[in-house]
């Protein structure tokens, strides 16, 4: 691998200063951690802008940054579908229609909402799946971080793994969720500052946006696509073959825009937890909306440089190439790192590397802080040691358990990191798992919030059935050119998708539809055991409408939502 960097003292200084602040924040928050509520829920005290930045920052992990820049190279501006159609509508929906129930029900986690709305077994199933998946995700990002440090900085793999785990452990152990959230905000700003020079320099290098379009035309035509296929979003989605993503517009719309994105943004506790930490119902609703504004501009920060990289790769005089894997294929995930090397001198280079390291660590911290909440409240408090009459002792006890869960979570993540080193494409693996678990979950939560007839037995069966349908679909179909069974087709080769992305989308669509169908049918066949009074605050039709009149118009969620939707429409039209 030829991606070795030579970092100078100035780069290491930047890194050391950043991590000193990260640990310092944890240390400064330590004295506020008096009970489990402060540690696991940040005391429900976050201002909306802090929660909002943490909300998108949790998702802006290094795997996302590296993966999306690589996708920019592979799919061009079509990658923005993951942001504009694939995130913003779901974030607005979460804010306007779902947050009042998550926040207002006083549930402390998504599994706990399921318990209040449906029953114990639905909560149990979700809590256990979530706990396992979160730790797996945390381990995968740890593994990727250690690989990165080994390749880029020449550090020892095992040492990098232990050192980064230790930093995460210290600051989440000390400051809990607050510490994780504060560091996510810090990370958001360092990512912007660290990557902005790359965007500006790379665009300047190819002669701006117009220069980029012109340089791309011959390269893209040679691949058999229209000359502007890499710089447009919807224009060539009429047929799957005409665009590099390999998915038609309705596949993008239903798979990414509806099932995958709603499944991720509206039900993933890791994300929703940030909004639940807000200080009031209005702040909780505004959290995803405030996050949506920077979110829709992130493509310019991480996708556009990836598109420039395609031009660089095809211009011999630029001396730009991606490292190759054992099979001789370019490693697209390393695009952003090679761009850092291409354009940044000592000094800002340290910032760029720090930004990547920071996003790895805050990704891990986010997973660990969501894991310890679900473990403590939904597993330990529900099944192992229920609350007693003595609140003071309980508070102390659950704080202790939360802290122990943090240590346990980090240790299991390390184990998962070694497990992850056995799998090839980490991002794809994660996405496969998420589409199998999140899509049915969205169906069940959505029905729970908007249909009071939905019953516990039906929800539980719906969750399981959705997951099995996803597995079945994955087992029966495969992306063209797949060479491992992880990619699908392990039962039979019934249908081939042009690309893996298409297969993921359709897995999610099938899982969500099956889950909805089964939950609805079984709900009608079983009796609703919860009375209307019990469901108040949990179901739309049984909850008094939120009154925003006391809030000034410019702070109202509806105003913000209109601004967000208008902006994203403008962006979509500009880059149609």
């Amino acid at each position, binding site marked *: 691998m030829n991606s070795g960097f030579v970092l100078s003292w100035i780069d290491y200084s930047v890194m050391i200063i950043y991590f000193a602040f990260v640990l310092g*924040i944890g240390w400064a928050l330590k004295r506020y951690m008096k009970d489990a509520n402060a540690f696991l829920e940040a005391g429900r005290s976050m201002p909306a802008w802090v929660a909002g930045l943490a909300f998108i920052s949790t998702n802006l992990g290094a795997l996302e940054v590296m993966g999306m820049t690589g996708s920019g190279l592979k799919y061009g501006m079509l990658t923005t579908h993951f942001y504009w159609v694939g995130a913003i509508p779901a974030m607005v929906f979460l804010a306007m229609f779902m947050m009042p129930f998550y926040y207002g029900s006083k549930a402390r986690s998504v599994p706990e909402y399921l318990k209040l709305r449906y029953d114990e077994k639905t909560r149990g199933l979700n809590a256990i799946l979530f706990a396992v998946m979160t730790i797996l995700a945390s381990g995968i990002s740890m593994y990727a971080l250690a690989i990165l440090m080994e390749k880029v900085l020449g550090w020892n793999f095992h040492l990098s793994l232990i050192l980064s785990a230790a930093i995460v452990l210290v600051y989440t152990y000390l400051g809990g969720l*607050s510490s994780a959230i504060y560091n996510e905000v*810090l990370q958001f*700003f360092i990512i912007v500052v660290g990557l902005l020079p790359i965007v500006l320099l790379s665009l300047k290098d190819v002669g701006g946006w117009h220069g980029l379009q012109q340089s791309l035309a011959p390269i893209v035509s040679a691949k058999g696509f229209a000359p502007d296929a890499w710089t447009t979003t919807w224009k060539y989605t009429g047929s799957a073959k005409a665009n590099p993503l390999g998915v038609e517009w309705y596949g993008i719309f239903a798979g990414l825009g509806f099932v995958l994105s709603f499944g991720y943004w509206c039900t993933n506790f890791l994300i929703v937890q940030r909004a639940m930490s807000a200080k009031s119902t209005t702040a909780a609703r505004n959290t995803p909306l405030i996050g949506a504004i920077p979110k829709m501009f992130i493509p310019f920060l991480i996708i556009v440089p990836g598109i420039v990289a395609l031009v660089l790769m095809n211009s011999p005089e630029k001396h730009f190439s991606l490292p190759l894997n054992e099979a001789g294929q370019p490693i697209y995930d390393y695009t952003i790192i090679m761009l850092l090397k291409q*354009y940044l001198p000592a000094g*800002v280079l340290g910032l760029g590397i720090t930004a990547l390291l920071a996003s790895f660590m805050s990704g891990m911290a986010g997973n660990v802080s969501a894991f310890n909440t679900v473990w403590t409240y939904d597993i330990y408090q529900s099944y192992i040691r229920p609350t007693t009459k003595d609140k003071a002792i309980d508070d102390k006890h659950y704080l202790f358990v939360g802290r122990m869960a943090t240590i346990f979570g980090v240790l299991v993540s390390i184990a998962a990191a070694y497990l992850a080193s056995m799998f090839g494409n980490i991002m794809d693996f994660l996405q496969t798992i998420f589409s199998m678990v999140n899509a049915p979950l969205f169906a069940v939560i959505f029905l729970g919030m908007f249909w009071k007839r939905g019953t516990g037995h039906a929800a539980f069966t719906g969750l399981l059935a959705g997951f099995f349908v996803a597995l079945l679909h994955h087992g029966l179909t495969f992306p063209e050119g797949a060479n491992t069974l992880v990619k699908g087709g392990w039962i039979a080769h019934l249908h081939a998708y042009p690309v893996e992305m298409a297969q993921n989308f359709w897995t999610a669509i099938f899982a969500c539809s099956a889950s909805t169908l089964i939950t609805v049918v079984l709900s009608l066949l079983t009796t609703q055991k919860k009375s209307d009074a019990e469901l108040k605050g949990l179901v739309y039709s049984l909850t008094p409408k939120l009154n925003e009149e006391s809030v000034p118009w410019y702070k109202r969620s509806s105003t913000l939502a209109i601004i967000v939707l208008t902006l994203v429409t403008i962006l979509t039209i500009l880059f149609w």
Partner: protein
Amino acid sequence: MGIDIKIPIGLMFTILGLLITVYGFITRLDASLYNVSLGINVNLWSGLGMLIFGVVMLALAFVSWKSKT
């Protein structure tokens, strides 16, 4: 929760901004260093940007602290 996040953000970016600006200023004549960045002294510009951002954050933190007391 306890501390105002604007303070650590402001402090960190002020310190980093100063460091990078000074480094950019010292190395302004080192053409070989800025070869990669198309001859632009990105350290100076990024450093100044971070410095301004850091100071603004600290000022905002000061304002919200004032309005509380």
